[in-house]
């Protein structure tokens, strides 16, 4: 069973590099489709049944999206592919949370940093596909702030450099109803995020919390999902407010 992979990357050297990474990562035979810009990628996706991913037609199983594309932001495609049944991974040169966080909100299942070594990339890719996505300290911090302020949370990270000098967050209306569980972090998840923000490795966190290594990863995956859901929920609320829905 061939695994269909779509790699969206405008730099041809980087693209071929990523192809090598993918090939090295999976033992299955895989069919790699390369796209150099958004339009091409969209065309390919439509060929497999469109963004909704009608099952039956052979969809992509893995999509690598470069965030720094010339004709638009890769996040647009990510948002379009919200329902698509593939593992969506963003590749980017930026490792700071200002750029990565919105991508994660759009539904990425993980990220790869282009500066990493070949071996590191292979391992990271495998881990993401296995369900063990990475989480840098900066992103962990951002997540903590995001979930702490509830749905429709922050638009500015604490130390991204744009915070007002007064340090007083504008009071937004707090929802009366309790937020549904899938939009709030469990205490364990918050704990994991806190440790991650301090720079601990998964192994260290596992030993500190007294849980298994896999459990930590499960938490991280759950956090990713909640981020995606909560972001989509927020987008839906916004859209309905603006009368678009």
């Amino acid at each position: 069973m061939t695994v269909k992979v779509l790699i969206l990357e405008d730099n041809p050297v980087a693209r071929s590099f990523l192809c090598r990474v993918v090939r090295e990562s999976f033992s299955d035979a895989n069919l790699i489709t390369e796209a150099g810009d958004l339009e091409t990628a969209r065309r390919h996706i439509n060929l497999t049944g469109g963004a909704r991913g009608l099952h039956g037609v052979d969809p992509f199983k893995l999509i690598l999206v470069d965030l720094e594309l010339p004709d638009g932001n890769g996040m647009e495609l990510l948002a379009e592919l919200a329902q698509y049944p593939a593992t969506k991974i963003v590749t980017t040169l930026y490792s700071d949370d200002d750029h990565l966080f919105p991508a994660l909100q759009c539904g990425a299942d993980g990220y790869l940093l282009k500066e990493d070594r070949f071996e590191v990339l292979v391992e990271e890719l495998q881990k993401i596909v296995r369900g063990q996505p990475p989480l840098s300290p900066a992103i962990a911090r951002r997540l903590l702030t995001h979930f702490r302020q509830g749905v429709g949370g922050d638009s500015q990270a604490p130390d991204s450099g744009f915070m007002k000098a007064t340090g007083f967050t504008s009071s937004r209306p707090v929802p009366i109803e309790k937020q549904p569980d899938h939009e709030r972090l469990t205490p364990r998840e918050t704990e994991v995020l806190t440790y991650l923000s301090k720079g601990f490795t998964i192994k260290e966190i596992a030993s500190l919390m007294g849980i298994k290594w896999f459990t930590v990863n499960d938490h991280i995956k759950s956090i990713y999902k909640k981020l995606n859901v909560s972001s989509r929920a927020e987008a839906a609320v916004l859209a309905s407010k603006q009368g678009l829905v």
Partner: protein
Amino acid sequence: MAERVAHDGGAADSNFDASGFEHSLNPAAPRRWTGWRRSALLAAALLAVLSLLVLARMLAGTAHLDAQWQAAPAGTLTLLSSDQAALNVMAGRTLATIAGIDLEPFEVDALALQRSPRWQVDDLRRRRQMDLQERLSQAFATGRVTLRFTDGSQVLAATPPRGAAGLGLLFWPLAGLALLLALTGVAVLLARPRLVNALYLVMAFCQAGNLLFIGIETLQGLGLPAGLSRHEMLLRLAFDAITAAAAVHAFALHPRRLPSVMPVVTTAWAITALVVALAAAGRLPWLWWWAQGLPLALGVAALLLLGVSHRIEPHPFAALMRRFGVIAAATYALVSVAVATAAERSGVADNVAVIGAVVWYLFFATLLLLVPFLARSRQALREFAMLAGIGTVAASLGLLFVAVFEVGPAASLTLAVFLALGVYAVARQWILNHLVGRSALSTERTFEQFHTTARAVQEQPERHAELLAQLLRELFEPSEVLTLDRGADRARVVGAGSALLVPVRGGDVESTLPPALMLRLARRGQRLFTLEDARLAERVVEQLKRAVAYDRAVERGRNEERLRIAQDLHDDIGARLLTLMYQAQSREMEDYIRNTLKDLKTLTRGLASTDHRLSHAAGEWKADISQRLTVAQVQLNWSFNFDQDQRLSMAQWSALTRVLRELVSNTLQHAMASRVDVNFSLQRQRLSLTVADDGIGRAPDNWAHGLGLGGVRKRVKLLGGEVRWRDNDKAGIVCEVTVAEFGSRR
């Protein structure tokens, strides 16, 4: 609470009631002189001018004898010269009697030269003087008089009407002043019909009357309008007494209502009415002393009232009026004493004493004239203060010399003038300070205070409103500063100088500043606000806002530029380095380029964000180093302590990041270690960082530092610290970085 004195003509601040400013602070336009007010004023002016002309006509129509006389020490009259030829022949002879046609001759002596019965201390002499003047005017009215001299000769002289030219030079200015005073009174009442202003009108009219009498006194030659002498004393007594009583009443109302004092006011009016009635009936002995004493007593009472009002709440108007009032009262008393003393010695002394008195009345009239305008201009106030100070000093001294030391008139006047000038030169500043109040600040101090405040506002923009209020407080020293809900378009002096309204926000709804500030009672009630103060306040507010805005704009521009540079660097250069990295021929080159790329990212990240917390940075460093060591299968011991989670500046953050990265890279590349210990400690601003490994490196002093370790040296030096490498205990190298004063370098 404080009531206002109305201002006349075009004043923009008559509307504001200093007590209820919050509510009456409507954005209505200031009262303009349109409609009935203007017509009324014009009518009054017309009426006044007409009356003046009628008076002048009447005066011009009086018959007079055109001749120069001299009063001899014995009290007789000597003819000096005359325009009539017939009379001129008789020059040098002493006059005995004058007789009009078909009239009895009557004796004439030096008393005829004295113009005004007002200044005749002795009752008897006054009556004689009045009688004499009456008979003179009767005689002159017949058209021809016979003058008989002591040596027996006699001559017939014509007594034509004066004509306009005969009114003399001094009459018109005095009449003009009287007119001005009367009209000011009318205007003040029209601007705001209130009891206080009505009292002011009464005072103005009375003093205008006095001035007119003085003007009439200046007529030359013998011969005054019939009936004038008879009534003059009474009228002038009435004028003075009424003025004083009105002053008492006015000060009981303004600047502060003193309801408990009403009995005093009623008493004052009652006494005045009584005295005037008695004098009219001719039953009052010692008339002159009453004429001097009653106004003086009432004046002192008025000053006491001012003192009471001032004690209840210090008001600059009250303070100022009190100062001037004390001077006026003191000089009045001095004038009275001088005239009384001079009356002992008849003759020349009289006239000089009278001049002193006239000067006093002029001074008082000017004071009355300026009262409504005190708040308008600091300049006017200052000039008037000088005038008051010097004029009174000169007049008093002159009087003193003449009355007490019996110096000749010319000599005494000259001496007085010189002394007054001397006083002016020496005590000018003192006079100004004490009469007007110390002028705001020297420009230097103002500038300095503004500068300090501007800098403080730039550093802490959230304290803008507070610092502005503080600056205004320092400049004007008000008793209180109030924040208002509504703004105004311009800075205004309200409440006759007792308060200053300063618009602050200026239409900008977003600002955290209040719409306007109200400063009350400058210099803790000692000084009035003037127009200059209003302008200064406006400018101060404006400049402060500009300083803040400018600073903010500069900061914003700087931030935007930094972001742009970071973005450019990252996108462009970063992408190219990445491509290079992919095409690297060897492992070393790939790692080299990778490190370069990471350094670039550190740099751009430092530019893009301004704020790096130590704890956050610690997490990122740990994660990064853990990952790299895990890949290389090297064990990591990580220890990180700090007593204060401070903000790292961009320089500090990027320097530490790169130092750590470089040291770890170095260890990974050369040491072949199995374990790396990283210890970070920041206690009381002292930073200590050690990176130790158990690898093969040895004797670091002998190393030739390549680019990497040289970079570490440079970065540490930038932080203001020191770095050294030494052998680790059993195996490997320890790199120690120490920064003694980490917090100071930003």
